[in-house]
């Protein structure tokens, strides 16, 4: 199995543990020590703040700050890498696509300009039409390639135009990653419950957190089950693309049995919830009060909010 090192179980196990750590191991995370309501409100606030800036520089500084926060929240390095990869390729995409679209448009335009003559020739049955078509297409491709090669600057300009947009998106993504991976599910649902979010939803979040590791295990087992009964493509192709395509197909197929198995599990869970008095808790103010007691806004919460606002104000004024 050496030649698929990136996909061996060892690394899968590592990734699993890293993601688990992100989601569940938040004892030392900075944001987890704050009052959950404050963190939730702060998050909403900072979903908006980046949109008030237009220059790349303050946005870049803000992004750096967001990364510091993510580091303090022990966000999975795999998740961050995935996020960055997504954003960078998105930006890179523009450098390729803008000239390409320009070239294609140019070539199509050229074909359009000359199509009239070809149609005329075809109607009169002139055999020279084939030669004409050939020369028109060649010329069109030439024009297109020329445009694509020479319009790099247009592409870069386009990127320049979208960079602030991507920066804003990235800041928001990193902040929400940091917040949701730093706060323990209990705290999160506690905070939301106190803010008036219905109990059904807060429970669903907590339950989702509880089930996720099981689902990951089950999904992995199902993929393994598929692998042991499938055949790998004999020719793996360039960069083993056939092999990876095969793995991709399996990983999509495995969702189907996964959903069935989950549905089966939930039957028992629903019964158990009933015996544990879940439906009683829905309209029960005492239960809600007990669940949300012990939350307190302290100096550190206030200073965190004001500190970050001051930081943003400083960016506004000085940059």
């Amino acid at each position, binding site marked *: 199995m050496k030649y698929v090192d990136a996909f061996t179980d060892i690394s899968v196990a590592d990734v699993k543990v890293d993601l688990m750590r992100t989601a569940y*191991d938040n004892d030392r995370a900075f944001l987890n020590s704050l009052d959950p309501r404050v963190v939730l409100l702060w998050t909403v606030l900072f979903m908006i703040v980046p949109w008030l800036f237009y220059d790349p520089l303050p946005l870049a500084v803000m992004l750096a700050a967001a990364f510091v926060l993510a580091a303090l929240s022990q966000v999975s390095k795999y998740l961050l890498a995935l996020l960055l990869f997504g954003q960078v390729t998105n930006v890179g995409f523009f450098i390729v696509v803008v000239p390409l679209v320009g070239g294609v448009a140019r070539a199509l335009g050229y074909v359009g300009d000359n199509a009239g003559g070809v149609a005329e020739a075809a109607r009169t049955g002139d055999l020279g039409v084939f030669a004409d078509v050939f020369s028109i297409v060649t010329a069109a491709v030439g024009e297109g390639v020329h445009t694509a090669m020479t319009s790099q600057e247009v592409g870069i300009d386009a990127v320049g135009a979208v960079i602030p947009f991507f920066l804003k998106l990235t800041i928001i993504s990193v902040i929400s990653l940091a917040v949701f991976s730093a706060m323990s599910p209990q705290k999160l649902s506690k905070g939301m419950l106190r803010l008036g979010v219905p109990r059904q939803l807060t429970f669903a979040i*907590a339950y989702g957190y509880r089930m996720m590791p099981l689902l990951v295990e089950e999904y992995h087992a199902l993929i393994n089950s598929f*692998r042991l*009964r499938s055949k790998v493509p004999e020719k793996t192709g360039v960069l083993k693309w056939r092999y990876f395509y095969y793995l991709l197909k399996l990983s999509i197929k495995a969702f*189907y049995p996964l959903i069935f198995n989950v549905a089966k599990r939930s039957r028992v869970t629903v*019964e158990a919830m009933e*015996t544990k008095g879940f439906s009683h808790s829905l309209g029960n103010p005492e239960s809600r009060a*007990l669940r949300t007691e012990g939350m307190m806004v302290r100096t550190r919460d206030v200073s965190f909010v004001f500190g970050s606002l001051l930081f943003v104000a400083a960016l506004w004024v000085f940059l």
Partner: protein
Amino acid sequence: MSHNSIVVEDLTFRYPGGDEPVLRDANLTIEPGEFTAVVGGNGSGKTTLCKTFNGLIPHFFEGTFDGSVTVAGTDTRESDVAELSKTVGYVFQDFENQLVQETVRDDVEFAPLNHGLEDYAERATRALETVGLDHLDDRFVWELSGGQQHLVALAGVLAMDPDFVFVDEPAAQLDPHNARETYEQLRRLHEAEDKTIIVIEHHSEFIADYCEEMVLVSDGGVAWKEPVEVGLNRLEDLLAHDIHPPQVTGIADDLPADTGTLPDGRYPVTVEEATTAFPSATPPETRPAADGGAATARGDADAGVASTGDRDALVTLAEVGHGYPTLREGYNRVLDGLDLELYRGDRVALVGANGAGKSTLLRLITGLESPDDGTVTVLGRDTSETLPEQLADDTVYIHQNPEEMFVEDTVRKDVAYYLENRDASDVDERVDEILEYLDLEHLADRDGRLMSLGQQRRASLGIGLATDPTVVLLDEPTGSLDLQSRREVTGMLRKAESRVETVVVASHDLQLVAGWADRVIVMGAGEVLADAPPVEVFADPDLLAATGLRQPQVVELSERVGVDPPALTADAMVETLSGTTESDALADGGVGGEPSSGGRDER
């Protein structure tokens, strides 16, 4: 009729959409302070009956409900599930899905919080202390072992301080060691906390050891309720419902009349009772001869193992080390410097405590995981250099949880999946053949996930055999099966042997191991602790105890009554004992040590 009892009167219940009532005129009274086992065959309605106690029926499953169920004076129809659950706690068979919060303490506090009880924290603490889990209260539930999860579910029930604790098949999903721990726990609750305990149980040996009363559910009705010693002696009733009496009771029944009974005329139900009831196998003066016989037997066994050296190893593990990263405890090394060779024709049983690395070992052989250190060679191929898909040409791994093997929506498609993926020529014929071979034809068009566990096991073996393997790896094939299904699995293993060269079974089920394997590998501390024929392994109680296993009753009994080497199956024991009984008569006539060795020869 006591005010605090559960009373079921003339209860008839039909699930919505069902044609037949599941319960018919059931009548039952459970008094406070009982420790009661509910038994019955698959589909007899015992779980349905028990779900009426806490109101899941008729409040959650709304069917046709006639008659009445009264819990501590309250008619269940006039209350609701949450309210009734304060009196009747329910631990589900599928307890893992009963845990709905992510940490232990949160889950135990869940019910008291839902009811808005201010002392929820103290309640949780008390419940966790009762089951001995207070040191784990901040753990994530999925990081716990099966046994611990079961205790969390139990603690979650105890947090509401119910009078009745109802546990659905505790031994089904737990290994024997943990199942026994759970029963010890239930006994403590019963004795120290005065709880009334009700269990659904297939394993009559647990019933004999722990329960006081026994209820047989048959065809939707309650056939009888008797004290355990009496109930377990109604062998015909039990066998008619696929419930196997304890091994010792079965042996007593097979012995000639007048032997093997207790003074009051009934058969023994525990090893303890059997020791007094059964004739001693070896008169003390013949002891040396018996030991000599044992030595010979062991000598044979050693010779058997030695002769395997001439054969080619199909699977070789050399200095294998392997482990996993974990969230809380860092890298957990499961196997460490393990050496093992498996040969053609081996019937290998892997035994060991939970976490001893049995499943890891099997997965290494499939190539799904490559060892961190050392090499694993399967049929001449190094698993680190070979894709699991390629190794699967010759080996098959049958998952502990059959559900993970069902990837299609019918059994037929599942069995055919491998063949079709490999462009086999005569897929339909081969699938038909396998389905017929394992008696799966009538299930062929059903979804595997919706069948009973016994049927699922059979189907998963069918999926495995369709690959025409050389090496079959089975992970816990008898886990959570009732005894009838377990016998079927043993039968299947025998059938499978005629088609494959080596079968490796990881199992906690020592009765299966005793009756089937010819080579037992005991795993512990990351390596092989013992590799010997079953007789030797079972004769070493220290080794078994160290690995969290327990001797089968028949082996324990052999020791107590002096059968040496120990009998491994009930039949062998019956032969030995009846041989001895006859020879005892002879011995009275004056012949000394001869007869007992005669008895042994019969084996």
